[in-house]
């Protein structure tokens, strides 16, 4: 990027980051109030049947849950500013909630990344081909297929995949992230760790565990990426510059790559970034079906156990990730679209 454009872009990023932190603060307040207004609570989750009013009061006092909510919130903010998010009470009691996020997050990234990858690898070529044969049987069939992806509840698709590939045919593992091979942990990304440490059986096992959940989860971005690609390619094919390119006698490959896809990819790139939110929601369902130890599963357990610290951290971090990814998408948009970049 030329020097003169760096200034505005940097300023833009800083402004976005400031706004972002504002949103996170507001969100943290809303989240705090929401969690505290949920029926039930940490204490019930810890004590179960044996909760007596005394043990309840004792625990509430010890946890500071008997204080007024505004006081609890200030304490929470104070701690959060010091980087302390509190200890978990349900998911992994005693562990710092942020550590739990750090332990669990790589799993979700691995899963989401592979899901996006699958979706992109299949959806973009399919979207292109469908657009080129607009109205033909291939187009209609792939449109219907992509909409089936929308119509099938993701947890049911997850179950179907598991039922056939894992249980019935025994091709892939049923659940979890890896067999207990005693693998070395470096980054928390199991596939990567295995490659780094050359424990290739670990990578292989992790990959096999990833396939089914990733395909299930891929159904969410797949439909969207396909439709956007198809629509974008249709739009671009109609553009004059494509006709110009044809008039120049350029080869099909150059026209497809430089003139059609490069332009059509602009909305597609944005869309892929935007799928992060939907992916997180889908991950909760998918990880539940595959007992895949990511933040989706942790979120479900934390919710069930009313583990406030963990819920707060997970949701705030999810929101942060979401916002950061959006920012990255906007920046990448600026990078790939000269009209934005050199404005």
């Amino acid at each position: 990027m030329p020097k003169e454009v760096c200034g505005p872009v940097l300023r833009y990023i800083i402004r976005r980051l400031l706004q972002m932190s504002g949103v996170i603060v507001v969100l943290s307040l809303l989240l705090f109030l929401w969690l505290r207004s949920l029926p039930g609570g940490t204490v019930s989750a810890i004590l179960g049947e044996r909760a007596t009013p005394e043990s309840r009061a004792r625990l509430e006092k010890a946890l500071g849950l008997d204080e007024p909510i505004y006081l609890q919130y200030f304490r929470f903010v104070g701690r959060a500013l010091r980087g302390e998010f509190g200890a978990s009470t349900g998911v992994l009691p005693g562990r710092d909630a942020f550590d739990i996020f750090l332990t669990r997050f790589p799993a979700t990234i691995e899963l989401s990344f592979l899901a996006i990858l699958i979706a992109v690898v299949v959806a973009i070529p399919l979207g292109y081909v469908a657009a080129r044969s607009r109205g033909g049987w291939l187009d209609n069939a792939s449109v219907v297929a992509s909409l089936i992806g929308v119509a099938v509840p993701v947890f049911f698709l997850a179950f179907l995949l598991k039922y056939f590939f894992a249980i019935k045919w025994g091709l892939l593992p049923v659940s979890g992230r890896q067999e207990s091979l005693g693998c070395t942990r470096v980054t928390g990304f199991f596939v990567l760790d295995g490659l780094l440490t050359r424990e290739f059986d670990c990578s292989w096992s992790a990959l096999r565990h990833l396939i089914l959940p990733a395909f299930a989860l891929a159904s969410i971005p797949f439909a969207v990426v396909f439709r956007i690609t198809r629509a974008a390619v249709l739009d671009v094919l109609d553009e004059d510059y494509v006709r110009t390119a044809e008039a120049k006698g350029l080869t099909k490959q150059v026209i497809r790559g430089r003139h059609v896809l490069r332009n059509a990819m602009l909305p597609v790139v944005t869309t892929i970034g935007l799928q992060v939110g939907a992916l997180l929601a889908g991950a909760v369902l998918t990880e539940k079906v595959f007992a895949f130890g990511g933040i989706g599963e942790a979120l479900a357990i934390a919710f069930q156990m009313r583990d406030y610290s963990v819920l707060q951290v997970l949701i705030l971090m999810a929101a942060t990730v979401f916002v950061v990814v959006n920012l990255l998408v906007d920046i990448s948009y600026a990078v790939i679209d000269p009209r934005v970049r050199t404005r």
Partner: protein
Amino acid sequence: MMSDAPLLSVEDLTVTFGRRGQEPFRAVDGVSFQVRPGQTVGLVGESGCGKSVTSLAIMGLLPQRGNTVSGRVDFEGTNLLELSTDDMRDRRGRDIAMVFQDPLSSLNPVVPVGVQVTEVLERHRGMTRKAAMPVAADLLRRVGIPDPDRRIKDYPHQMSGGMRQRALIAIALACAPRLLIADEPTTALDVTIQAQILALLKELVEDTGTALIMITHDLGVVAGLCDEVNVLYGGRIVERGARHPLFRDPRHPYTNGLLGSIPRLDAVGERLTPIPGSVADNLPWDHACAFAPRCSQPIERCTQVTPVLEESFGRALRCHNPVEVPR
């Protein structure tokens, strides 16, 4: 400089659009004309008259589905309509080039202008990007873009409308084609720029000996540029003639009408007389003259018998009741 063997010979070109369940529609209906090397030929008519479809048919750029093309398009003795798509690809940009109407939308917004020039050279001249760059800069200089070495890195949105059109012309002329088709190249531009671009085109065509097909709705454009003019209406040529005779003595009521709707500096005080109605009022050519409903002097025969194109003394006319006294 005009030789007798035509460079391009279009014979009985017919393009029919059809959609499932709808009446097929003939956009171009038996059009024939010739272009000799170095000659500038105009195709004139309102939007919807078939002039753009004709040019696209010559270029082989019509959509692959939903239309049928018949007739012949002989270019240097080869019928372009029978070429395979790959062979046609080899010719486009090298032998025949085209400049489109809207210079902004005709340039790829995400690719630097320079690359859009060099890619033609890479394709047809087999040059590398690196070798093509100075050539491209030179081309840009030739079409009058100042500081081409810097401009070559610009994106289309960073250029003005006129400059973009110049860049498009540079792209079209990059491989020194023998035929250039310009489809309304000035319509989207400011009036002052229009004149510059037309002058540029004229200059370049004369310098390089490139034949030019000028497609426009604006007889004013034709007047300054073309050797021969074809007037199209409803997919058929209704009148043809060399520039001066045609302008001086338009025989077809439509040509006459078109001339009448041009503001003229030498006719102060005269009212402009637009042609009434629109293309939607057309009759089918089958048993009538399509222009009859809008014609200023229709006779009974016009709605009963299809007029034929009759040639005489280098002019051609398709009319039952030609204009005797031009307005």
